[in-house]
């Protein structure tokens, strides 16, 4: 029926810099997947990166989804929202700013508050790994052209001022 085992992602760029908030779990998972599949080299300096993936905004939200007839929260919706974009070191947009919002629902009861706290952590972790996978898939669709790479690999020429600055 036409299904074939997916080959390894082939990233068209050899270096990537991930500019996410410091302790972002999604960024850790994404790096783990990229290293695990050896898709590209993750660098710590944006200047050396052909592609810069940056998080514009990352937020979580917890809203009551349904109340029971005593007016007490019975289900919560947990949202994990991320807006990200990807560009070359020179600023050319490779992935337009994109918003992904994931949702998980969780039953709730006041007397199980502590256990629901742990469940919340589990569900957010699940959404973060789901987000990492979705970002990975979008990175695989980036088509970095040769001249992008050329521009990236010769940054020295552009940034150095031609005439030495007068003392």
């Amino acid at each position, binding site marked *: 029926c036409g*299904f074939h085992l997916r080959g390894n992602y082939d990233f068209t760029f050899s270096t990537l810099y991930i500019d996410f908030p410091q302790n972002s779990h999604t960024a850790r998972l994404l790096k783990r997947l990229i290293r695990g*599949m050896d898709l590209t080299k993750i660098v710590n300096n944006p200047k050396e990166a052909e592609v810069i993936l940056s998080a514009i905004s990352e937020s979580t939200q917890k809203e009551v989804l349904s109340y029971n007839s005593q*007016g007490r929260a019975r289900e919560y919706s947990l949202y994990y929202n991320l807006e990200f974009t990807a560009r070359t070191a020179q600023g050319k947009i490779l992935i337009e700013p994109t918003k992904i919002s994931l949702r998980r629902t969780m039953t709730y009861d006041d007397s199980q508050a502590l256990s629901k706290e742990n469940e919340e952590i589990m569900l957010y972790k699940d959404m973060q790994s789901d987000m990492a996978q979705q970002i990975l898939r979008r990175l695989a669709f980036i088509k970095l052209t040769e001249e992008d790479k050329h521009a990236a690999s010769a940054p020295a020429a552009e940034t150095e001022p031609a005439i030495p600055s007068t003392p």
Partner: protein
Amino acid sequence: APTTPGKAKNTPPQHVENPEAPTILQAEQITGRPARDLYLDYEVEIERDQTLITGDHGIFRQEENEAEIIGNVFIQRFGDQYTADRGNLNLDTGEGSLTHPTYKLAANKARGTANRIELTGNDNTDIFKGTYSTCEGNDPDWYLKSSKLHLDNARNVGYATSPVLYFKDVPILASPAMTFPVTSERKSGVLPPTMGMTSKNGLEVIVPYYFNLAPNYDLTIFPNLMARRGLQLGAEARYLGNNYSGTTYVEYLPNDREADRDRYFFSSRHQQAFNNGWSYYWNVKSASDDNYPDDFSSPQNRSELERLLLREGGINKYFGIWKTTLRATNYKVLQDVESPIIRPFDRLPQLMISGGQEDVNGIDWHLYSDLTRFWLSNSELDKMPLQQQSRGNRFIMKPEISYPIYRGGYFFTPKAILNVAKYDLEESPYDVTSLTRVLPTFSLDGGLIFERDASFFGESMIQTLEPRLFYVYTPYKDQSEYPIFDSGEPSFGYALLFTENRFDGYDRIADANNLTAAVTTRFIEKDGAERMRFTIGQRYYFSDQRVYLYNTNRDESKNRSDLLLMANGKIIPTVSIDTSLQYNQSTQKVYSANFSTQWKPGRMKLLNAEYRYLRDTVDFYGNELDQINVSGQWPIAQRWYAVGQISYSLPENRTIENIFGFEYNADCWIFRLMAQRYATSSIESNTAFYFQLELKGLSKLGTNPLNALQRSIPGYEPLSP
């Protein structure tokens, strides 16, 4: 709430005039001495840099650089426009005066007529016996009439003395003085007043006032005059520093006439992180009495005012790969006599240590450990079912090690976990004082990813087929005498199918010898975005499950978990669905089911329809959830917007919550009406009507009660801030 405080620049652009600019005088006739005075007659026009003056006759005094104009005077300066029958203006200092003027300001198009206008230089304007309005045309729907109106355009604030506010020519408000923002910037000023009628408090009038204390912190106070109870003072302070942020919300009603005692509700959240790895936070709520939610829940506080009020504070320290947290948690319960709440345990204190590394030549390891004193007073313990009446200290440590293999077409993750637990109990129904438990867990998680080109509703996409298997083995250990502090049965779902322990928390380590099988198929758009996802999954138990939360609810032993069917995503860009079904084959009963669809054809146009069913299992009250929720937001006519939500409980065939809101958006004012009815306890429900008149440009962009709907209507877009 108004836009959250940020790093907004607070100094308005100064109106700078180019001192070098020449003055160009035109008229049908000019006589005089340029070094002194020039007299201009008929079709007079005087222009200099950003100032243009026209009129019938004029005198230009070179010495003072001042122009005097008589006869249908028009002055335009930095975007502000004035007409008058007489006027003079100093082109250097901007000072001048106009008799019988009309004006139209660049800032939020405010305009009006007056007896006299004094331009007092550096962007200040005094309007005497004049009107002020932001409505187009010369018959404004609303206008403010005052003996003196001082507009400080540098700070974008207007001060009116003895103003009277007219709406459709009917005076609706008079006060000795009033300030208002001249531009929509975050400026201090009165927010649109809200009138309300609630079944609990009768007539309510809320006139909030917003203090923009600094670019990154603000304070909103909302005095609320309740006919039946008295004057309640509410305040919300928000602040955002470069390494700290927080919100504090207070409602205080001194000697409530109905309950003749003070009533208050308080919620404060704060977090601060230092760059040496230390950070701390607190999240504290409190209320004066148990009936507070029945009497005072409002759209404003509904998200914070729960019956179970968390009070928690903690200190974190990162060092290297480790994070340690020392926190204390306590709960205040606003008891509902009809369906009482069992208090969760306090954690006074809890020390947590966690850390880990990834890809240490292929191996990931992670350790979580905590030492907690779970505590409840004797009186609280006695209220609990006997088998839960235990308290004391618990130490747990949970090292994990795994060797994940990720490839494009498959992944395989063997993992080993060790759950170590030691209890020193001071109270226990089984009069044991110390318990230790060490249980290993082994799991294998693997999956394949197949792909093919396919089309979905006419669009060519990539379809994946992802079979996944997850085997878990954990030996059995009798834990019936172990206390339950933070363990429970999580909601059934995809995430739960792939976690090793059937219970969350650390008090119950489920015996396991089970295999989860699941297949997911996704439709992926051209740019890699996931359009639609279908999943089917089930867990097979190769041996009976013998560990339970409590001995009472022994479920009949079943060899298969419930079947999970899920589908969510966008069928077509404007229609999305989110459905899941949990079906038990042995009992042939559905345990949970929800089908929700959303149709969002455009901005501020959406309809949600949802059926939610939840059979109660471990829940103590046996009240299942069987509801239909319909909600939406729709522009019903030119300038009219409607918002609504109904949640209807089938077993009790009554509505649990319904909200209707309307907003009429004229060019310079907005009228909002919101009717709301929701249960606040098993017998009490609160009916409330709120209406609000927002005069654009007069009041700050205020808190819009309809925005409280944002929480209950997925996809709701606030009509105006």
